[in-house]
C-alpha cells in the first residue's frame, strides 16, 4: 500500500510496517507546495491510526520529534500563506463587490439628496433627481452657463431660483461630478458582480438572478457556506429582526428574508407568498450546492422550480 505524507511517499506492508520510504528534502517551500497539492486532491491517504511522527523519524526525514514539529510548523505556515495569497476567489470578489455596492448606494443617496436641495435652491424647475441631476449639474453647472440649445435654456431664463455666482457654481459642479462618478462606479461594480456570478455560480444566477444571488453569497460568507445552509435558513436569511422575534416566541415565523426581492415572491399574491418562498429557497439551496460541487450549469433546477411555481398557482385558483 502506497501512502502520501507531507514529508514522503511511503510503501507500507500489510502488517503496517514500512517497506520503502523516500523522504523529501527539507525545503520548506517545496514541502508547502506538496502539502497544497495533496489538500486540493487527497489521494493515497494514510490509513486511520497511521503515525507520521514515528515514520518521519524512522525513515530518516528528521532526527527527532523537536525537529519534526519545527519543520511541520514552518511548512504549514508557508502553505497557509501561499493559500491565503491565492484565495481571492470569485466568492470573495462577489462579497466585497456587493458590500461596496451597498456602501456606494448609501453614500450616493446621501449626496444626491443634498445636491437636490442645494441645486434646487438655484434651479428648482430643473425637475431632475439622483443620477440624472448629478450628470446634468456635473456637465452644465449653473443656470446661466447652460448653452443656448439646451432644452432647459428657456426654463432657466424664467427660473425663480436664487442666483449663484461662479464660485458657488464651481463648488456645486465639482460636488455633482463626485456624485456622478460614484454612480458610474456603481454600474462598473454591478457588471463585475454579474461576470463573477456567471463564473462562480451559474445555477444560482439562473434561479436567483445575479444581484440576489450575489447578495445571498455575501450574507452567507461564501458559496461553500451558502451551499451548506438548510433551505429553511436561506428562506429567512436577511429577516434577522423578524426571526429573532419569532425565536423569542413573540411573532409568527417569518416567511421570507432577502429573497422577498425575487419577482416570484414580490409579484405573487400575499396568500401564496409563503409557499413560493419555500419552493424558491429549496431551489436556491439545490442550485448553490450544484454550483459549489460541480460548477456546471444544470437547466433542470430552474425547470423544476418553474413546474412547482405553476402548481402553486394552479392550487390557488
Amino acid at each position: 500500500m502506497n501512502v502520501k505524507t507531507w514529508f514522503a511517499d511511503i510503501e507500507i506492508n500489510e502488517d503496517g510496517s514500512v517497506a520503502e520510504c523516500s523522504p523529501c528534502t527539507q525545503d520548506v517551500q517545496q514541502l508547502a507546495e506538496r502539502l497544497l497539492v495533496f489538500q486540493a486532491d487527497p489521494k493515497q491517504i494514510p490509513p486511520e491510526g497511521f503515525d507520521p511522527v514515528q515514520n518521519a523519524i524512522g525513515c530518516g526525514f528528521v532526527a527527532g520529534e523537536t525537529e519534526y514539529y519545527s519543520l511541520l510548523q514552518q511548512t504549514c505556515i508557508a502553505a497557509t500563506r501561499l493559500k491565503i495569497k491565492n484565495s481571492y476567489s470569485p466568492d470573495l470578489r462577489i462579497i466585497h463587490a456587493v458590500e461596496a455596492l451597498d456602501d456606494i448606494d448609501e453614500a450616493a443617496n446621501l449626496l444626491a439628496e443634498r445636491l437636490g436641495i442645494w441645486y434646487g435652491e438655484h434651479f428648482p424647475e430643473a425637475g431632475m433627481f439622483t443620477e440624472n441631476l448629478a450628470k446634468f449639474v456635473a456637465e452644465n453647472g449653473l443656470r446661466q452657463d447652460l448653452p443656448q440649445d439646451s432644452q432647459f435654456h428657456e426654463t432657466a431664463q424664467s427660473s425663480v431660483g436664487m442666483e449663484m455666482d461662479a464660485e458657488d457654481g464651481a463648488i456645486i459642479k465639482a460636488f455633482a461630478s463626485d456624485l456622478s462618478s460614484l454612480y458610474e462606479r456603481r454600474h462598473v461594480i454591478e457588471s463585475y458582480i454579474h461576470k463573477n456570478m456567471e463564473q462562480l455560480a451559474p445555477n444560482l444566477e439562473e434561479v436567483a438572478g445575479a444581484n440576489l444571488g450575489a447578495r445571498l453569497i455575501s450574507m452567507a460568507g461564501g458559496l461553500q457556506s451558502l451551499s451548506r445552509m438548510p433551505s429553511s435558513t436561506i428562506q429567512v436569511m436577511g429577516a434577522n429582526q423578524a426571526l429573532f422575534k419569532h425565536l423569542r416566541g413573540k411573532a409568527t415565523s417569518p416567511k421570507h428574508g432577502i429573497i422577498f426581492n425575487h419577482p416570484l415572491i414580490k409579484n405573487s399574491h400575499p396568500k401564496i407568498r409563503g409557499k413560493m418562498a419555500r419552493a424558491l429557497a429549496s431551489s436556491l439551496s439545490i442550485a448553490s450546492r450544484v454550483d459549489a460541487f460541480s460548477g456546471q450549469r444544470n437547466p433542470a433546477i430552474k425547470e423544476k422550480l418553474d413546474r412547482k411555481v405553476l402548481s402553486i398557482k394552479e392550487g390557488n385558483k
Partner: protein
Amino acid sequence: MKVKTFHENIFTLQQGKKNFLATRNLSPGSRVYGERLMQVDEAEYRIWEPKRSKLAAMLLKKLPSPFTTTSKVLYLGSATGTTVSHVSDIVHQGVVYAVEFSPRTMRDMLPICEERPNIIPLLADASKPQSYANVVEPVDVIFQDVAQPDQASIALSNVQHFLKPGGYLLMSIKARSVDSTAKPDTVFKQQLKTLLEQDNSRMELVKKQKLAPFHIDHLGVVARKTE
C-alpha cells in the same frame, strides 16, 4: 492573589471576591487578543473569559477537562485563535493542529502560530478530514467549534480518522447554525443522536451541559471513543 489548580495546567486566580479562569502564558509578556495578563510569583497567567470562549464556558459549566501538558489536540474551527492560544498554553509540551476554513480568519491567526511552536495551522475544511490526513497524527483530544449545519457528522468523521481509542471529543453545538428555525432542544437531540447512535460511531457520552449564560443556545458535549 491566590492561584488554584482547576484542572491539569488550568488555573483559577482569586482576586478579592472574584475568580478568574486562566492559563499560564507560554509566551510571557505577549498578549494574543487583548486579554488581561496577571503576574503571580514567577509565572504569568492569561485570563480566560468564558464569554469569549466556548471551551472556557464548558470548563466553568463543570464539563471535565481531558487535557494534559503533553496532549496531542486536533482543534476544528480555530477562528482567529483566541481559544487555541489557551489550549496551546495548557498542552505546552504537546501539539495543537488548528483547522480553520476561512483564509481571512486564518490570516489573523498566523502571528500566533509564529509565536507558539506547538500550533500547526491548517487552512482546510473540517468536513474533509482526508485533506489533512497526511499531516495530522493520532490525537488524544478533538475539540470542535464550527458553525456548520452538519456539526455532528463533521465531528464523527474526524473522530474516526484521528482520535485514539480512549480519546475525548469536546464539542460545542450551536443550535442556530444547524437550523435557524427549529427549537434548540430539538436540534441538540438530533445532533447527539447522529453523534452517538450511528452504527460505527464508537462514541459514548460522558457529559453534556448547556453553555448559557455565557453562550445562548449552545450545548457543550464531552464524549469518549471506546477502546
